[in-house]
């Protein structure tokens, strides 16, 4: 184990660049950064505002040797990208960083104003110098996180977050998830019809997703085939989202970036989490957990796929 900067420098000896974070001068929170030299690496940070999943950049850097500072959940994306043959294992070095649940920076800023000063030390969260309950501002995805064990490690950065078990979320549960689970199908229908009426079709959910590798030729936007119209009516927006969700079956590792990126706060993780659960239930497959795996929708099993219709 090494400290972050040493680890990055070490990885830089064998790679072209390292994807990591540095402190944004205007806000004091972490912002994605690219380190090409050991000098640049001095500016690297890792803290509970490193919310971004930097694996999204890997497919675009295919021809480079890339190091990536990754939270345990980001590391899953790296694994799944390798499984999907979007990234060659030999070209990525994973610097696993410790995580004890990330902060919902966007939520803090929505409440307290953009750039509000965030200090998160020793389990105590202060915003603009005033202590607030940390658990209230934990990113929703972290509430369901089961393990902070990184699945793939080339360099492990020391820290207190990597517990192997679930992260410290101060006992909070995901009440939206629970509420959704308790809804009837009709209530869910109404829920989504309302939620998608807010969608602005900015495709941030897609573009921020490491596993959405179609990139520039995405079906959510094409006219041929004309799966969905271009309007922001909830019907069209929902279809666009159905395309995205369906395409991520067996790929989505549940990193939650889609939901975090959504500027109008559509809780997309409710769908992604459910699909993840089903993929595991049906195929005993957890995307992002096994680098040797074969994606479940790209194969079949005569012996075990024994469902019919219902």
């Amino acid at each position, binding site marked *: 184990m090494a400290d972050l900067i040493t680890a990055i420098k070490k990885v830089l000896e064998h790679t072209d660049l390292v994807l990591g974070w540095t402190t944004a001068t205007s806000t004091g929170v972490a912002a994605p950064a690219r380190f090409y030299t050991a000098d640049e690496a001095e500016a690297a940070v890792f803290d509970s505002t490193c919310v971004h999943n930097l694996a999204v950049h890997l497919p675009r850097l295919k021809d480079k040797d890339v190091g990536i500072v990754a939270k345990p959940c980001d590391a899953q994306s790296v694994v799944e990208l390798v499984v999907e043959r979007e990234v060659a294992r030999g070209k990525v070095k994973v610097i696993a960083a410790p995580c004890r649940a990330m902060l919902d920076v966007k939520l803090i800023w929505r409440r307290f104003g953009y750039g509000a000063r965030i200090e998160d030390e020793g389990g105590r969260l202060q915003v603009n110098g005033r202590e607030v309950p940390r658990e209230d501002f934990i990113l929703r995805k972290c509430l369901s996180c089961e393990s902070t064990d990184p699945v793939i490690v080339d360099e492990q950065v020391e820290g207190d977050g990597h517990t192997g078990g679930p992260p410290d979320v101060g006992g909070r549960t995901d009440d939206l998830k629970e509420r959704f689970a308790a809804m009837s*199908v009709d209530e869910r229908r109404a*829920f*989504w*019809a309302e939620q998608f*009426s807010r969608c602005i079709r900015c495709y941030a959910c897609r573009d921020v997703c490491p596993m959405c590798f179609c990139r520039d030729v995405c079906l959510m936007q094409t006219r041929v085939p004309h799966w969905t119209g271009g309007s922001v009516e*909830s019907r069209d927006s929902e279809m666009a989202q159905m395309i995205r969700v369906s395409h991520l079956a067996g790929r989505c590792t549940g990193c939650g970036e889609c939901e975090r990126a959504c500027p109008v706060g559509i809780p997309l993780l409710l769908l992604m989490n459910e699909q993840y659960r089903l993929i595991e*239930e049906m195929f005993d497959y957890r995307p992002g957990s096994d680098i040797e795996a074969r994606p479940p929708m790209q194969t079949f099993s005569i012996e075990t796929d024994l469902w*019919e*219709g219902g």
Partner: protein
Amino acid sequence: MSDLKLIGFLCNWCSYAGADMAGTSRMKQPSGLRIIRLPCTGRVNPLLIQKAFQEGADGVLVSGCHPGDCHYNEGNYYARRRLELLKRMLPAWGIDPQRFHYTWVSASEGARWAEVVAEFQARIEALGKLEMGYPGGDVVSQVS
């Protein structure tokens, strides 16, 4: 006659032929189902089913060759995974999974096809019309 809309996606080799067989054998069936012919259930994109629900289908039926009998050897094995996942995802989208049924009917199972159609029609009739709950009816809703 009910105004329920039922769509069936049938593989050409087994179920479509089975439906033909039911016809040749003059097996009376309820008339709600409208059949779309495909080469294989492996050609059925689950999105097509979701799209159908969005656009007013009250029930969607997919039928193909029995596992092991696929004209293309493997098509229905992939289809089975895709369709089963969709079926289990439907509740998350707020659609009763009962509205979607997939099954296997071979070219010789005309009688079984007639049963499948009758049962499916009865099931959807019991569920009634599907309301997707989208506001507005225009192609494009206007903000102001």
